[in-house]
């Protein structure tokens, strides 16, 4: 049973059609990257999968069972099983780092305060943050730390499904590759299904099991990056055959 199954998806933003008949399947435990040129509808697709955007047509199946017209209760239950990390972190600015991570736990559980706090510490640690960052406010964090806190918050409820929007954008190369490793590690440790929207060529080559390439409102190709580089579809091979892509590919095959 796939974790996500999208059939014949159509979405519109205003009068602009973003997706026209898009199909996509994400298997459990898979780390799928969504790529495509700017404006191809990657983020909108992510918003559809996280139930933030309503499709104009088509079906979105999460965790395999069908349910039409989600009640608030079902929606809440479903959201509990997914974690979302937004591009710019979207941390709650009025709460400290640790409170940001504790927030979903407080909303969904009645665990003792001590346990929640310690669980938040575990998540921050998993996301690679030092303990002394916990009491800081989001405004006092660097870009990389903000991303890590956002990841820790996304992981707060041990989601089965993790969505990441441009997780490495704006990070220096070392932090970015650390972050990539972290995501793979977490996937293996926690058995997550991960969907990541990314422009980062290194991420695409190094962590993705499969890359879904978006264009013309559909998934033009969905395969391993090295297969995509030899794709017969011009838009795909142009994207993956580009100079930056090729250098990233060489780095992947000849790790220093």
């Amino acid at each position: 049973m796939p974790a996500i199954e999208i059939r014949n998806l159509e979405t519109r933003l205003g009068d602009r059609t973003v997706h026209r008949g898009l199909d996509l399947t994400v298997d459990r435990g898979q780390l799928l990257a969504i790529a495509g040129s700017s404006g191809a509808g990657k983020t909108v697709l992510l918003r559809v999968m996280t139930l933030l955007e309503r499709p104009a047509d088509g079906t979105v199946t999460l965790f395999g069972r069908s349910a039409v017209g989600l009640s608030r209760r079902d929606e809440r239950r479903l959201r509990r099983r997914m974690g979302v990390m937004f591009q710019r972190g979207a941390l709650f600015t009025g709460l400290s780092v640790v409170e940001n991570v504790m927030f979903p736990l407080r909303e969904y559980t009645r665990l003792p305060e001590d346990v929640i706090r310690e669980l938040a510490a575990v998540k921050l640690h998993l996301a690679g943050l030092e303990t002394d960052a916990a009491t800081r406010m989001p405004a006092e964090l660097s870009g990389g730390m903000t991303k890590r806190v956002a990841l820790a918050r996304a992981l707060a409820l041990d989601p089965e499904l993790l969505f990441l929007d441009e997780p490495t954008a704006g990070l220096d190369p070392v932090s970015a590759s650390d972050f990539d490793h972290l995501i793979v590690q977490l996937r293996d440790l926690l058995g997550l299904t991960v969907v990541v929207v990314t422009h980062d060529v290194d991420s695409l080559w190094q962590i993705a099991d499969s890359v879904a390439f978006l264009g013309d409102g559909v998934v033009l190709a969905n395969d391993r990056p090295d297969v995509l580089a030899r794709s017969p579809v011009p838009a795909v091979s142009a994207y993956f055959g580009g100079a930056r892509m090729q250098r990233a590919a060489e780095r992947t095959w000849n790790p220093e």
Partner: protein
Amino acid sequence: MSRDTGNRSATGDIVIAGDTADNGADIRFEDAERRIVCLGDWRVTGLDAVARRAERWRPSSAHTWVIDLGGVEALDTAGALLLRRLCHRAGEDARLANASEHHEALMRLVEVEPLQRVRPMTGNPLERLGRLTVAHLSAGLDALGFIGELMADLVPRLAAPHGLRWRQVAAEAQRAGVNALPITGLLAFLMGVVMAYQGGSVLRTYGANIFIVDLTGITMLREMAPLLVAIIVAGRSGSANAAQIGTMRITEEMDALRTIGITPFEMLVIPKLLALVICLPLLTVWADGLGVFGGMTVAAGGYGVSFSAFLDRLPAAVPAGMFWAGIVKAPVFALLVGVVGCFQGFRVGGSAEAVGRAATVSVVQAIFLVIVADALFSLAFQQLGI
């Protein structure tokens, strides 16, 4: 189902599974065998009851305890954390039984030094008073600094007015002045109506109906109209200025302006101030007119003072000095509202919350200062015999 779906049609369905519901988490303390048996689904959202029991539990004897995970059907980091805390409580030589490799991996994962609990800063009342005083004094100093900086930027520019951004001034005047016409007009009219009614009922008992002209004319022109306009503009534009500048600070637009070589004063503060200084006297005249008109309507409708009688009496009842005494206050109120709004905007740092706070504080402070200034004007006018 989804929050911001706008008005898009919703024929698409979102299809999901329910929970893979199985047995809830359970825990049994078998004191006789010194065994703790864990059962069921040990995942974060089903652990409330188990967590409460586990956290209350204390080992009854100091022997070796065994924690049996054989019955655990699912485990996540929250469950693993609870188990780890249980292990610690059971004593150093407690051991796990029937733990799968996955269970053990998770238990290792949650082995993290606990966070120090931060105590909220309370301190004794004296200390708090001291901190508050220092904070307010430094805010006062900041305000002085802001005004100084503003003057240093403003004065040379006023000497060469063609260099000012008149296009910005016009846009601000549209927002702060023209768009405020309906609300100020309506409220001034209603104030005039209310005053004429309340005053008229007293005056009528003395047969002095015609003095409604003096009453509404003087109070409206001299006090009510400038005050009313200043308060409305403080609520409309002062808060908007604070919020706009505050948001621009958070989004680094201020810094972007600076790097392009434009000071925020030049681009934002000075146009806003100029627009307010130009608009407030004009709005006051407008409110004067509508306020008096309100009084006139009531006088004609309820107290037998016709429009023409009212207008005949008006110049004699309200000398021009009264009118000017009201008008000269308006630019001062404008400066207060504008400077307070912009200053609060510049004090914003960090969070979205701070923007809201700045907007609120700017309105409260602006209204406060406007009323204080009005009182000072009254004193000064009295001394000068106006």
